[in-house]
């Protein structure tokens, strides 16, 4: 079905100034709450980019700053410093009135407690954003509202008051309302937090369908299992974003350790085909691929180079010699197809992290074991 809009809001979403095709860009974002008891930093140096069509889950412990992060993004709250670009619009510069109008057209917000207006029917709740934003003709609004309620499977409850619906039905209605003005982005804060697991699953399926239809979804949740089903997970701890590649590499680590590690990571880049580790050299660093691919070669005594493994973003290397001691057991170089970027720890930090986390030690030992077997197998070929 084609809806006639009074403005083509998709035009608002443009590539960011840095040329990347990121829909949402958060730069060096800080949020400090000033209270009588003193300043409380809720977000610190947050940098985040989200591409169009991504389904990003934001997870973190209670009080970690995930709701603050989404509030910054939706313009519900203002950052203390830093910049937020959404579709090229510097929303941190918008005043409350401009923000409300912009948000109404470009961002659907779904709250944990549904937040439907209690004195309006479900149908009217879906109609009201179109009314506020002057979107569509009145007839189209009615048609669209019913269509959205059908989409979320509660059309038969359209003319009931929210209080007569179950939690799951209310959340579906809230999602329909968020979609009313056909915004490209949906931001949702704990959308399943107040629902049973079955209903939560249905709501999540709905989000996945919306992503397939081209929406970009940012979902705050405390449910790790649900978060894993999103296309991307952003972890936030103590107001700071955990490095996603590190988190992917060591998902079982506590968020605090992830954050600790994030702070020690050193980004490095290599040209296509450039060696990163030379076999036999001294082991001084641990690497996690953040962009591109690296290739692991074994130089056999017969001088033949054997490709042992290819590693992509979120995969690590350089741990064997660091754990076992001795020289590097293989060579690692950037793929010849493209330059690569890696995140590295020095030996001291790596050892310290392993000392702090038995889970990481176990993970590394398991990896060393598997990779040792791979190398032995390659050496025999």
């Amino acid at each position, binding site marked *: 079905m084609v809806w006639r809009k009074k403005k083509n809001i998709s035009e608002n979403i443009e590539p960011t100034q840095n040329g990347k095709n990121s829909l949402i860009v958060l730069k060096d974002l800080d949020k400090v709450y000033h209270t009588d008891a003193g300043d409380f930093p809720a977000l610190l140096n947050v940098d985040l980019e989200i591409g169009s069509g991504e389904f990003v889950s934001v997870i973190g412990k209670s009080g970690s700053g995930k709701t603050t992060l989404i509030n910054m993004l*939706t313009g519900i709250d203002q950052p203390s410093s830093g910049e937020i670009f959404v579709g090229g619009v510097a929303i941190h510069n918008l005043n*409350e009135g401009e923000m409300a109008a912009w948000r109404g057209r470009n961002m659907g917000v779904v709250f944990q407690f549904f*937040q439907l*207006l*209690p004195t309006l029917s479900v149908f009217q709740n879906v109609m009201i954003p179109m009314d506020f934003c002057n979107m569509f003709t009145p007839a189209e609004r009615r048609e669209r509202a019913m269509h959205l309620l059908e989409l979320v499977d509660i059309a038969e409850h359209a003319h009931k008051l929210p209080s007569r619906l179950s939690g799951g039905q209310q959340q579906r209605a809230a999602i329909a*309302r968020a979609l009313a003005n056909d915004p490209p982005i949906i931001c949702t804060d704990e959308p399943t937090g107040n629902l049973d697991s079955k209903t939560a699953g249905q709501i999540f399926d709905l989000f996945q369908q919306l992503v397939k239809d081209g929406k970009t979804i940012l979902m705050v949740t405390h449910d790790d299992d649900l978060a894993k089903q999103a296309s991307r997970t952003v972890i936030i701890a103590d107001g700071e974003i955990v490095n996603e590649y590190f988190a992917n590499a060591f998902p079982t680590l506590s968020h605090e350790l992830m954050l600790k590690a994030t702070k020690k990571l050193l980004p490095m880049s290599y040209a296509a085909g450039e060696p990163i580790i030379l076999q036999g050299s001294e082991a001084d660093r641990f690497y996690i691929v953040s962009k591109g691919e690296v290739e692991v070669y074994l130089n056999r005594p017969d001088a033949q180079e054997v490709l042992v493994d290819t590693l992509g973003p979120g995969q690590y290397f350089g741990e064997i010699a660091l754990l076992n001691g001795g020289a590097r057991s293989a060579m690692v170089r950037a793929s010849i197809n493209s330059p690569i970027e890696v995140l590295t720890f020095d030996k001291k930090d790596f050892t310290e992290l392993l000392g702090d986390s038995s889970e990481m030690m176990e993970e590394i030992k398991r990896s060393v074991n598997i990779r040792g077997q791979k190398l032995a197998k390659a050496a025999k070929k």
Partner: protein
Amino acid sequence: MDLGSRWVKILNDIWGNKTRSILVILSIAVGVGVVGMINNGRMMIERDLYSQFAAGNPASVQIYTSPFQKDLTNAIEDHPNVEAVEGRRMAGVQILFPDEKVDLTFVVSEDQEKNKVNIPAPIEGKSTPGLREIAVELQAADALEINIGDELQIEKSDGKIISLTVVGIINDIYEIPYAIRGEVFGIVDMRTLQWMGYQAYFNRLDVVIQDHNNDRDYVLDIAADIRDRIIQPSGVVVGSIQIPGLQADPGEHWAQNQISGFILILQLMSVMAIFLSAGLVVNTITAILTNQVKQIGIMRSIGAVPRQVGGMYIFNIFIFSLAGLLLSIPISWFGSLYLTRFAAGFLNFKITSAGIFPSMLILQTVLAMIIPIGVALWPILAGIRISVFNAIYQNGLVQEGQKPWLEKLLLRLSFLKPPVVLSVINTFRNIPRLAFTLITLTLAGATFVATFSTRSSLNAQVVELGRYLNYDAAISVSSHVSKFTAVREASRIPGVVAAEGWASVIGLIQTSRGEEGAEVEITGLPFDTIMMDPKLEEGRWLNDGDNWQVVVNRDLIQETNLSLGDELVVKLLNVDRKFKIVGITTKTIRAPIVYINYAMFSKITGNNDQVNQVRVRTDLEKIADVETQTATALLLEDRFHKAGLSNGLGQSQFQIFGFFSEPFDIILVVLVIMASLLAVVGSLSLAGTMGINVMERTREIGVLRSVGASNLSIRQVVVVEGVVIAVISWLFVVVISGPASAAMAGAVIFAVFKTALTFQFSYIGLFLWLLIVVVIGIISSLAPAGKAVRLTVREVLDYE
């Protein structure tokens, strides 16, 4: 019709909160309706009363004389400053009813069909009765159920009874009506009067002065000129020259000052009502916005700009205003009709049509539309300015800012139980809201106390008046009765232990420039009278042997600017008499009076020891109770009638008091009603405030619940806060009720008597209000306290 969702939301909100919506609509309707009622009533009264009054060519001045014939009026009509003159005969008789007698005054004109001045309006039947016929005044006819065709049994002063047929009902707006004076006016033909045995003559001149006929001094000057140049040279004696009415100016309705004063007081009350109504609107709108802060945040989060949200709530007020306006119209319609009917019944005029004047409709529309929106704009702007973040996440959490005074207060209250401390602290958490509630309650309280003080002042005035009416019963006696006869007859009445004969005559004060000034009543009485207990402000009372020494009241001093010891010159029966002022009594609510020893009075008036009035006492020590007074008055009347000494009514002191206090009672009833309304508005305001407070503190209540607060404790926290607010308002009442009471009592007394009299503050009123306001505090807090008790911990703390 496709109504936008946002407007549907507002309509649903209004419908969904019926009690609150009705409260706001009623507030607007009552405030605007009261303004409409009073002003529309005023306009109806002005239209009908004053137009009907003016239509009959009201007399500028009335001259009471000895008998005269028609040729005198013709002569006066030729006076260059006279527009019209009407000679009238006033004769007093009584109507006999099966169980009572009522005074009837015959009014006889030269030619009833060609009345020129004070023309009565025909209502029903004949307005020009023929021989043995009478036309009765409308109000008395209604009250006494006199109908056309009835035969009235009339008792003359000589005891003879004759019968007159009622042939018409007329409306005489110029005489003080039956409802006030208790006297019937009836029009008869001069032939009927002659048939009854009276001589044919006139004794009153109703004169309309040309030009400047509203100028009291000018009118009196012309009247004096008529007296000196026409009346007295013709041999007719002038008894008195009076401007008709109760301190009214010439050409004005006899109660115009009182009506204007009363309406002014009502208008002030209406301003207060609209002020309180506006305040209640603010309070309720604040409550609505407080309740909807989160919804405002949600709407903002889905695209509503502040202008749109503001527009929604202005639309909300608009609906309230519209409903309030529509409801105010019947209030003002029926209210003004009731007020006008009340006035018409009291003042004896006809209501020509009921309805709301277009100008009043416009005023009500403007008030209903502008005031609520105007006063609600601030809370609306404050409500929509709140950030989306605060609206969504901070709602329900009242964050205390840095308030060092609060910490100090907490320290000082540390001896109290924590729930009580919480109540006291809660009272001061929202100062603007507290201020409004206090203003409302304080105004209501001050009005209440002022009403009581007005009543107290009037009582004090009546007690003061009582000093000059220090007798049980009195009766007017016929002109030929001697003092000796009158006192003897009165003394023979069983129970009477003392009787005095008094006499009075009207004189003219001669100014220092030798001009004639105001009229003065010269009263001759025994120097050792016990029928009066004068309160002397200066000098002494009369002594035995005083001749030209007189005592005067403060009214005379104010009129003449004379002082104790000065010489007072009064023209008495065309002779200038010089008196020496030896004493000054307090103000009375009457005109200037000169008290003189009866013997000297008799000598200078040449009245041959005759008296006008007899006063009696049944106990030398004190005034008797009402029953004894009434019985004595009846005995006095019976004996004097039988002895042919009087045709008047015996009057008890209580009856005289009633005449003075009755108009006040009506005013006081209205004031008490208004004060009660204000108290209701005040309690609604307090209930609203407590409701908002509870709403704002739901989380706090949840916390109290979670740490074990019982239902009683929760109720206590809320109710004690209500009582604390009530008591604080009472303390403000203590401060302002003094001046407010003095102002109101002064205004009411001045409105009726055109003079400032004794003020007495009512401590009973003040402490009664303390009791009432504490009860209001408790009752107003009970519903919010009940709501607080019903909140569960889960509801309050699990939310979000």
